[in-house]
């Protein structure tokens, strides 16, 4: 990988304030602009915690996180929110905003406490809707969206934040195949336009479809990381998930199959 990473972790250790066991152990990784990076691992591997640390929700006990060449701790909340946008796994929205109003919330990093969004923010929100391909949803109520549309709206809000780094927590977890494909190709095109993408998933096929690099985590630790070709192998995935599976090549495309002995 050429050039400087926009996001890097150096020997990061973390445990929750009232927990005794380390949730993350000695995590080091680099994320470069214009790449999609998948964090893979079974449930409870520490994938979401990793994202929370990168957001600055919790400070690591040891190690350092650097964003845009500066330590995370040197950023203000506002400056951090102009560097990193988050697409949460699911977001419960108790009030029935219109899609455009909701995406407009992504402009918060550019507004002070008492400041209202202006015309240029509304333009940015519309631009985000167009980039995500859902300009037609602008006037819909968020309660009237399907699961796939909802996920696209969450991504549009993060895109409206206009950050160089995009974090996504299980972006395809609850989606059917068509929507999964739509989200994945969107992530691919956002990366192609220069965004550094880091997303978690417990599904290797998602990583195979779109990721440039892959990080395999288990029990708070990185087992393997590197290019998709090097990392997503039968041996390494079996070790990560501790379940029998096979990585096969079908017409040049790799697929992951679970090994069911009875079949």
């Amino acid at each position, binding site marked *: 990988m050429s050039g400087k990473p926009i996001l890097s972790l150096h020997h990061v250790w973390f445990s929750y304030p009232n927990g005794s066991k380390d949730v993350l152990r000695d995590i080091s990784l680099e994320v470069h602009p214009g790449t999609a990076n998948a964090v893979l691992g079974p449930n409870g591997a520490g994938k979401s915690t990793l994202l929370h640390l990168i957001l600055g929700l919790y400070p690591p006990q040891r190690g350092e996180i650097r964003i845009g060449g500066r330590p995370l701790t040197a950023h203000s909340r506002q400056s951090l*929110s102009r560097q990193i946008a988050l697409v949460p796994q699911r977001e419960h929205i108790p009030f029935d905003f*219109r899609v455009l109003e909701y995406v407009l919330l992504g402009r918060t990093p550019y507004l002070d*406490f008492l400041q209202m969004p202006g015309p240029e923010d509304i333009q940015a929100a519309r631009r985000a809707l167009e980039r995500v391909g859902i300009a037609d949803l602008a006037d819909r109520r968020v309660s009237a969206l399907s699961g796939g549309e909802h996920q696209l709206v969450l991504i549009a809000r993060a895109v409206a934040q206009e950050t160089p780094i995009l974090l996504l927590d299980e972006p395809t977890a609850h989606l059917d195949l068509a929507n999964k494909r739509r989200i994945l190709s969107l992530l691919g095109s956002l990366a192609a336009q220069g965004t550094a993408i880091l997303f978690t998933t417990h599904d290797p096929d998602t990583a195979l479809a779109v990721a440039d690099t892959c990080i395999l985590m288990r029990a708070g630790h990185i087992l393997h990381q590197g290019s998709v070709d090097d990392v997503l192998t039968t041996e390494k995935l079996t070790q990560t998930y501790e379940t029998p599976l096979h990585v096969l090549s079908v017409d040049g495309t790799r697929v992951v199959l679970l090994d069911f002995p009875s079949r």
Partner: protein
Amino acid sequence: MTLRSHHRTGFYLLLVALPVAVALSVFFGRYPRPGWLSPDSLQADPLAAQLLWNLRLPRVMAAVLVGAALSASGLTLQMLFRNPLVEPGFLGVSQGAAFGAAFSILYLGRSAPTIQASAAAFALLGLWLTYFLAGRLRYGGWILRMVLAGIAVSALFSAGVGMLKYLADPLTQLPEITFWLLGGLWSTRWRNFLPVLPLTILSLTVLFLARWRLNVLSLEEETAFSLGAAPGRERLVLLLAAVGATAAVVSLAGTVGWVGLIVPHLSRRFVGADARRALPAALLLGSLFVLLCDDIARTLSAGEIPLGILTSLFGAAAFLVILTRLGIQSPRH
């Protein structure tokens, strides 16, 4: 922002309706006979002029203020707590104020300003207790802890109110406590209206100016954080403003129920969920609602009907209609 045309119409309607209602309310009453007081008779009848200026005007303005404060606080708390069923009283504020008023009637004094000061002090004590308890609870997230602590503190104070009612003199003190608990503006004069004005106006100004931020704070904690907000600190500022406004008007009017719950729902229905429009709409609609209820309270019968009974009656009826006919406006996720 595409402000939909029916939203805009609804908003302008409210903007016109409120001043008209205020003007009409001042001339509507039971003196010298039930119905309208013609402006001409003001010159002829000095008593009418005095009544208008000293009794009716402060009362009408108080109704507007109570409605605006309870509705804006209700909307703010609903968004801060991400729960459309929250209302201003639920953090121990209303029950605290009720206890303060009853306590004052029994032990401190029965003049309106004394009752009012005691009610406001105990309302704020209720909030503080809720906050303090929530900080000590070892269970759930911020919202759940505040709700649980609020329920406990409210129960504590209402037990206290029950105790005071039991101890009260049934002929003099008890009716006064009961009437205060039911809520009303019959005792409003300039001298007890003006002192609550600064805190209420200040609080409402903060809520009005920060209404965009309210949208941000209605998102989940990690999302609000990732958008650059400082959810803890910002929530506290808006919470204090909402409770400040509530404590001030509750000390003036007693417990006026349902306004803070139903008006935000209706406002969102009229102008949408975005607080940039919903909060101003709640201010106007709340004012109008309480003003009309109070007009009925003071004119329908020769005796005063407690305002809280009317707001609860109409509020609960409206709520039932929304629930059964229209559905609570809340997404599925």
